[in-house]
């Protein structure tokens, strides 16, 4: 099959998904691998997907074995191969960098998972049912992973999802040009094939609702609802029409409300507030939707942006204009809708790592700016849903509103309730969520077997 990798990052549309490797391309890439003794790539994966092993298997033509290694270690191995900032994880310490450049591990991982699907090879063998029921609240990467590994061991797992479709952040937070809808659906199919019951449009709402699942026959609950509430910004004009948040914008983009978001940005200047990966994804999405000019206004300097390099480069390739070390102070309006933004360039009061925070920024005198903008998108992160505490009255929370857990078992202060993913960590990677899902599944199995 002929496959061509994207030759340019310049997006033609919202669905301009990059194809994966062909077998020949994958073999050629694996041939560059040095097959290190103490593979630093394997040490660099939070979910212990073990690239050192699966690349060796690919190299020695044991392709099914390679697929097995990935899927047994990381049920979302395909998705992670696409969305992981591999340059910061497995590829970071790749020894081949010393020869030439790191092995493209993410792409190899994606290839192998797709290869397994292509040849109809499913390495995951489900153990006989043990009729022990476990509930998972939230179908993001943490929840899906926990559910999959429990189901594989014979547990009867039900996942409750608030939204129409499963996947959480993968479904509603990652743009289509990065992770195609079909790809995510296919990988989720591997999970439902293990017998996991996915209940969408099924919010677990009301006082004590999550904890009460334990009274409904579930022997354990894994809470992993993620961070669904976007942070807002308290400046004049924040209420104006055409001001939105990255969460809402990306969700609309993924949920098929293209007309709505297209209307918001097409042929307009768009000001995005934020300098992280999500801001860059929003910016690239705006460009794919034919926005005229797109600014990313960030408090950090160019070298300090929290966005992953690939996401930043993608935005730059799509002609996004980064305005570093700038603060928006006002959104100006006309007739109730956004007309522009006003702000000032900033500098740090004190220099040093960990000090890239608003309270450490001060205005550079005489460096005010104003931009013409037809839409403003706020991309400064999100926090936990405020109703979460109500649903989990026995669970202890941190000051930031995150769930407190035992780091080794992910057990919360409420017996039988475990938690993981962003709701515990704050904003983190999909692969971290996978790691949590695995850890929780192990701890849940251990506690339930011990209780027999």
């Amino acid at each position, binding site marked *: 099959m002929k496959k061509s990798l994207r030759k340019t990052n310049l997006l033609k549309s919202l669905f301009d998904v990059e194809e994966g490797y062909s077998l020949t391309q994958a073999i050629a890439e694996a041939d560059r691998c040095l097959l290190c003794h103490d593979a630093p790539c394997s040490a660099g994966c939070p979910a212990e997907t073990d690239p050192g092993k699966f690349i060796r298997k690919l190299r020695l033509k*044991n392709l099914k074995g390679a697929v*097995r290694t990935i899927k047994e270690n990381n049920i979302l191995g395909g998705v992670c191969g696409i969305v992981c900032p591999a340059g910061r994880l497995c590829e970071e310490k790749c020894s081949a960098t010393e020869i030439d450049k790191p092995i493209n591990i993410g792409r190899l991982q994606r290839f192998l998972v797709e290869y397994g699907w292509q040849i109809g090879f499913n390495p995951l063998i489900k153990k006989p049912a043990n009729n022990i029921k476990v509930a998972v609240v939230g179908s993001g990467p943490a929840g899906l992973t926990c559910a999959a590994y429990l189901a594989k061991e014979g547990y009867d797992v039900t996942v409750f999802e608030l939204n129409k479709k499963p996947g959480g952040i993968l479904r509603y937070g990652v743009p289509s040009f990065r992770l195609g809808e079909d790809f995510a659906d296919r990988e989720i199919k591997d999970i439902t094939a293990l017998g996991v019951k996915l209940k969408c449009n099924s919010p677990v709402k009301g006082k004590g609702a999550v904890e009460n699942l334990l009274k409904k026959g579930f022997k354990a609950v894994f809470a992993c609802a993620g961070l669904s509430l976007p942070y807002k910004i308290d400046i004049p004009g924040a209420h104006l029409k055409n001001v939105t948040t990255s969460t809402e914008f990306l969700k609309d983009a993924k949920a098929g409300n293209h007309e709505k978001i297209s209307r918001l940005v097409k042929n307009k200047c768009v000001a995005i507030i934020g300098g992280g990966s999500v801001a860059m994804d929003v910016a690239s999405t705006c460009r794919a939707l034919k926005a005229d000019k797109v600014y990313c206004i960030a408090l950090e300097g160019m070298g300090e942006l929290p966005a992953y390099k690939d996401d930043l480069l993608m935005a730059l390739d799509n002609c996004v204009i980064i305005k570093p070390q700038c603060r928006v102070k006002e959104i100006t309006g006309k007739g109730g809708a956004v007309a522009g933004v006003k702000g000032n360039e900033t500098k740090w009061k004190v220099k040093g790592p960990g000090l890239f925070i608003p309270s450490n920024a001060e205005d550079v005198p005489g460096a005010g700016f104003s931009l013409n903008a037809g839409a403003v998108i706020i991309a400064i992160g999100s926090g936990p849903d405020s109703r979460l505490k109500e649903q989990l009255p026995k669970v202890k929370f941190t000051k930031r509103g995150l769930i407190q857990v035992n780091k080794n078992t992910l057990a919360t202060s409420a017996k039988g309730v475990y938690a993981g993913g962003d709701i515990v960590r704050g904003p983190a990677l999909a692969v971290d969520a996978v790691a949590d899902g695995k850890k929780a599944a192990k701890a849940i199995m251990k506690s339930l077997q011990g209780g027999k």
Partner: protein
Amino acid sequence: MRELSIEFCGVKFPTPFLLSSSPVSNTAEMIARGFDKGFGGVAYKTLGGEHTKIIHPSPRMRGYDYGGKKVIGVQNVEMTTDRPLKDNIKDIKWLKKRYPKHVVIGSIMGFSKGEWRDLALTVEDAGVDMLELNFSCPHMSVEGTGMKVGQAFELVKEFTRIVRDCVKLPILAKLTSNVTDITEPALYAKEGGADGITAINTVRGLAGIGLDDFIPSLNVYGRGAISGYSGPAIKPIGLKCIVELAKKKELGLPLSGCGGAETWIDAVEYLLCGASTLQMTTSVIRYGHRVVEDMCEGLSDFMDAKGFKQVKDIVGKALPNIHETSAFDVSKQGAASYDLERCIGCGQCYIVCRDAGGQALEWDSKKRRPVPDDEKCYSCMICSFVCPVDDLITFKDIKGKKPYTPKPSKL
């Protein structure tokens, strides 16, 4: 993972994969680690008599690369063990004690009849499960030793007979491919009482010559030699020998394949061609013991996919499909078929068809695409192996096609 055991010469092997008699089977400690990874047995590095002190040349090996691909072959000047016999015997005993279910084959090479007998009795006493008689080491300069035995068939028989007469254990004769017909010494080994054949040892070769000093690239202080060459490059020769031995009706002995196996696919090929076990060294030299993990997993998945219950069911399955070339049906002819939609226009097919093939392609220089001619194509298929796009050029049968020969040049 499936059960991968197989019986070979009456001995049960946990897996069909063995470390062959070579540097990779030099000590018990390294062999033990190999067992832990999935090797089912070992042909322990060849023991010789104590009368001849072995001192290895330095350096001992030279890798042979091709393009960006490292170690497609290795040239070596390795000899039999240089460790004291008593140390090796201790190691063999330790191995058998710690790994009672794994198979330890004592490889021996005598420099005289008496030595063959003494060595056979000594290793039998140490507790080995089988013996392998090394008639094939390509680096023995003494007449009547190593490969020189394998080339002097009467000696194969004589030495095998000597060992047969003094031990009860199954005996393998390890043969060299550096003969015209490997089945001849195999038949002599059988006459001498061998229970099975191991084939092949390394092929004599020369990895290269230094262009500044004119010394072979395996340069032993200014001198080089023709010596044993191994690795993926010799796999076709190993397979050929196994097929010849397997097809020799008068022989009818079980076979242990050896030569260039690196992946589970190579392993399955050896089994399909008639080998019941498979020995390896160069793949371990290249990748370490971990190669066997992939061989076991790959073999197991292959058996699942094809419905084989036991490894022995695979052995020899390809043999009915391997014929003399005279048996081909030449009334059927085909041609190279081009999927030009996917062509990227490099023109390598055109170059090789013109210079080395049937001149069956034209080149459309405007479109930068080849123009095939089915009638002229004599299906050498060279174009298909140089084409960089997967399966763009494939073989197709053409009903009623007549063989084509080029027209003479006009005077």
